């Protein structure tokens, strides 16, 4: 095996994965910071502002604190499952980032293309959905292995919630796949060069946003951890680094959902109103850099929307939540799918 083939099959992917992991972990940590800061502003208070300028070092301080804390395993817990459960939560949350194209591919001199994605799988979306569907194991196992009632309650709720909302989520994504005619994320982004899918597929977008909020267990659907009812939900008994894993997994999921929404509905790295070719003619690096920036801005706007929701709404009750999922979102998603299929079949031939 030559050095070059080794680099192609092992080296470059590994480097990409390491870079992506670093960037994602950084983004997730600062998502927490941004959320706390923004919530502070929403609620007429300051938010974390003591550690470093504007509190910018706060995430690192929090991380250090959580690492140094004692890792408590309750007497009733099943120690092995209790220890490995956070891994089941955090791995799917981070693996999902592998298929997201963050910027248009960089074309260097000799026609060599460097895509800004770890692996542009041709079944990208399906891969993403199947990977994220594994995240529920972390929650279920945590609740089960803690040997305590509140986590058990939280995990049962969470599992049924995630299973229920996966269906409208998938259906709304399906209509995007129908429009784009491909599972590959870069194809889907390319299909939006004229118009982001959020406009023609407004119904699907709405369903996606609501189900995504539910999938990531956030207000108004944060029942699994609804702190006023279930104390902390499935991670009540966790402390220290294992708690941090759940925390990170939750926010990684939030960031992932923002990135996916950007790619699927908001046009990804496509710059609105500016054709790709004109930019490419200007400078190849400029295209990628601008694309990356545009992707970031869109994702952050979506994130802002997320936090805004959290600051505004109360929490649904468990039965109401399931009712919304099955009685409202599912019919809307199905109807939307039929509409899109019809339009695709009859109008856009």
């Amino acid at each position, binding site marked *: 095996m030559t050095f070059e083939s080794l680099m192609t099959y092992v080296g470059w992917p590994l480097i990409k994965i390491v870079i992506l992991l670093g960037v994602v972990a950084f983004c997730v940590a600062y998502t927490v910071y941004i959320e706390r800061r923004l919530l502070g502003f929403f609620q007429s208070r300051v938010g974390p502002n003591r550690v470093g300028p504007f509190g910018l070092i706060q995430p690192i301080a929090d991380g250090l604190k959580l690492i140094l804390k004692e890792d408590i395993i309750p007497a009733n817990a099943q120690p092995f499952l209790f220890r490995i459960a956070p891994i089941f939560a955090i791995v799917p949350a981070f693996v999902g980032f592998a298929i997201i194209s963050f910027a248009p591919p960089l074309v260097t001199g000799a026609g060599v293309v460097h895509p800004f994605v770890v692996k542009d799988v*041709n079944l990208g979306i399906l891969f993403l*959905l*199947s*990977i994220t569907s*594994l995240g529920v*194991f972390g929650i*279920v*196992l945590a609740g089960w292995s803690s040997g305590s009632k509140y986590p058990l309650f939280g995990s049962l709720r969470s599992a049924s919630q995630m299973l229920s909302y996966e269906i409208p989520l998938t259906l709304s994504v399906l209509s995007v796949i129908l429009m784009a005619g491909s599972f590959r994320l870069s194809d889907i982004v390319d299909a939006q060069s004229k118009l982001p899918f959020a406009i023609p597929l407004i119904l699907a977008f709405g369903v996606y946003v609501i189900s995504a909020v539910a999938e990531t267990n956030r207000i108004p659907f944060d029942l699994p951890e609804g702190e006023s009812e279930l104390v902390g939900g499935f991670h009540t008994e966790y402390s220290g680094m294992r708690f941090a894993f759940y925390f990170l997994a939750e926010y990684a999921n939030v960031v992932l959902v923002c990135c996916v929404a950007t790619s699927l509905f908001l046009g990804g790295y496509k710059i609105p109103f500016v054709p790709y070719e004109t930019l490419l003619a200007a400078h190849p690096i400029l295209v990628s850099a601008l694309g990356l920036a545009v992707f970031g801005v869109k994702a952050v706007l979506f994130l802002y929307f997320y936090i805004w929701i959290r600051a505004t709404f109360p929490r649904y009750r468990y039965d109401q939540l399931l009712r919304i999922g099955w009685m409202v979102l599912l019919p809307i998603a199905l109807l939307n799918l039929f509409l899109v299929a019809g339009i695709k079949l009859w109008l856009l031939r």
Partner: protein
Amino acid sequence: MTIGWILLFALIIACALGVVISRSPIASALSLLVGFVGVAILYLALKAEFVAAVQVLVYAGGILVLYIFGIMLTDNEALRLTRQVHFQAWPVFLLVLVLFLWMGHKLYHSDYAATPPAAKVMVVSGGDQAETAIAALQAQSQVAAGTNTQRLASVMYGNFLYPFEAASVLLMVAALGAVFLAKKEI
């Protein structure tokens, strides 16, 4: 790449063993989860990407969660204390071993893997045109060009439309049946 295959096989078989012999049902379920992911990787390696994705999405993300639910709902101390293996384990083991050896022998000595049956007929009748016959068969089976998923779709919604609908009816019936069985007021 042979090492990779052997590792994958070893993983799948180890997980299957874990399902059958581990004491706690939840360990069985988790080991099945890893085994399913292994099988999905196997599917990927055999160029069946769509089936691999469905395997993970439906099996690992859906069915197994239901099983874990079931384990959580039916757990009690008494169950944990009883012997997990049936008294008939040893006879069964011998039976399965005999079956395994016999079938393994048969499989090892058969030549099923050489050529497709239709092509084999042609080989028998037409002699040296076997190569072209196989090529023709392959071309015929690949109804539409494109990715594996697209071809799979055209086969599934073309030749197998009615079985597909039947499968959906089956799922519906299963869901209704499950609700009926589990409902408190019969």
